């Protein structure tokens, strides 16, 4: 896509700005869809119907919500640290959005084709932690501070399992660039890394248990990093009201919300690119091409976003000590075993 734009516009800054815009439009559309989906899926799981009055089956409700949030008064508490309070939404949104730069939405479109790829995404999404801590501290509210501390401890703890799970996939694919990783998994469903990638059959059979474990852990750690139920301790409304964004209202709150949704898709997209073929079609060369690529990665990503919403109404919230236990004492040792086993199988 970048070459195509350059042939039209010449090599100037406009090309790079246009290259950055599609993920932003995608995030906005996706946030509207997910807002609607979350309410409807939640309601139907609980045998309710959710919005029915704004438009056909309430499809206009997300637009109404956005309009309301734009018009809402923005309250900065008198005792808050005003600078940090305003800066926090910038960090949280920008950190998440910058992660989208290395997601290949199709063979022809990737925001920035850096060879660091997924490594960069992990680094960029760490900025979010700083933003959350900043928002909690600056609010000068006890709920916010506790929520932010929990959130930082949680994201930081789950970054180790997710980085190790990414490592398992990188060992097999030999690249950090998610576009190359997706290309590597060419040839249909059974060449995806979760099924061992395009390896000889015997190796593949031996490696499947470990890649499947790594994929499952990456997904779980991703849910924890996006602060979703069952890992939504930072926002545990029965204990902490709204956690780090208790004091936020109006547009700033909306930006936290959009960033959380964007983060849900980001973690799903990383898992999809590394383990489920990214933009590759599950049917080999059938139904594949640049446009189908966009379709496949969005469908796969949305499937996991749906999965996260589904989990929210299936599992109860964990306790803080259980959360730390799962990360440090279950997932980390399991992944050490996975890294060793995959290493051994690849060498033999």
């Amino acid at each position, binding site marked *: 896509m970048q070459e195509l734009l350059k042939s039209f516009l010449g090599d100037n800054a406009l090309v790079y700005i246009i290259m950055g815009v599609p993920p932003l439009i995608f995030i906005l559309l996706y946030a509207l869809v997910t807002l609607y989906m979350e309410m409807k899926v939640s309601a139907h799981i609980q045998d309710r119907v959710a919005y029915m009055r704004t438009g056909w089956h309430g499809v206009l409700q997300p637009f109404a919500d956005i309009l309301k949030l734009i018009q809402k008064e923005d309250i900065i508490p008198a005792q808050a640290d005003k600078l940090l309070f305003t800066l926090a939404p*910038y960090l949280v949104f920008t950190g998440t959005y910058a992660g989208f730069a290395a997601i290949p939405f199709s063979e022809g479109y990737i925001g920035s084709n850096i060879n660091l790829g997924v490594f960069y995404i992990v680094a960029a999404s760490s900025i979010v932690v700083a933003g959350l801590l900043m928002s909690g501290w600056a609010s*000068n509210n*006890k709920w916010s501070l506790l929520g932010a501390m929990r959130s930082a401890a949680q994201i930081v*703890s789950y970054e*180790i399992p997710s980085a190790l799970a990414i490592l398992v996939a*990188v060992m097999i694919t*030999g690249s950090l660039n998610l576009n190359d990783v997706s290309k590597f998994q060419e040839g249909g469903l059974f060449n995806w890394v979760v099924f061992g990638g395009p390896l000889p059959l015997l190796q593949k059979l031996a490696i499947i248990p470990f890649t499947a474990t790594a994929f499952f852990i990456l997904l779980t750690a991703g849910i924890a990093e996006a602060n979703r139920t069952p890992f939504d301790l930072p926002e545990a409304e029965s204990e902490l009201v709204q956690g780090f964004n208790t004091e936020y209202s109006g547009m700033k709150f909306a930006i936290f919300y959009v960033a959380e949704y964007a983060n849900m898709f980001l973690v799903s997209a990383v898992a999809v690119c590394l383990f489920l073929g990214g933009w590759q079609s599950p049917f080999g060369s059938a139904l594949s091409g640049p446009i189908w690529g966009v379709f496949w990665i969005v469908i796969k990503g949305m499937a996991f976003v749906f999965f996260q919403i589904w989990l929210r109404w299936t599992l109860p919230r964990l306790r803080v000590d259980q959360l730390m236990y799962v990360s440090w004492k279950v997932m980390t040792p399991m992944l*050490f075993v996975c*890294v060793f086993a995959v290493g051994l199988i690849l060498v033999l």
Partner: protein
Amino acid sequence: MLTEFGSILVFFLLGIVFVAGGLIGSWILRPHRPYPEKLAPYECGEEPVGNAWVRFNVRFYVIALIFLIFEVEVVFLFPWALVYKEMGMVAFLEMAVFLAILIVGYVYVWAKGDLDWDKPRPEVPVVSQVAPTMTASRTEHVPA
């Protein structure tokens, strides 16, 4: 013109511009009617008690330290994983040694109980409430 990292800078700038645009847009539209009660920190409707900038548990600090060690280790593992298939057995043995050292540290941290969130209640050493007087301590040390 721009390198690939330049495109990433563009992404960061677009993110900032988007948030700024949203906030400025809503600043034009929204009402501004603050009063003291509205600006008070939310504490479930009660008058806020004290300041929220309190001290918090040292556990968070310990978790951060352990995280730092593991994160650095993972940073070292990524270049290794990239060239893994080309280097073969040598790479495997090299990393087995590296990981073994790390796992020793991991086992140590686990055994010390730093990975437990629920800490056993600290045992406060019991000391005599009454301070010994000069004469009493002197008589104690006098050999019988």
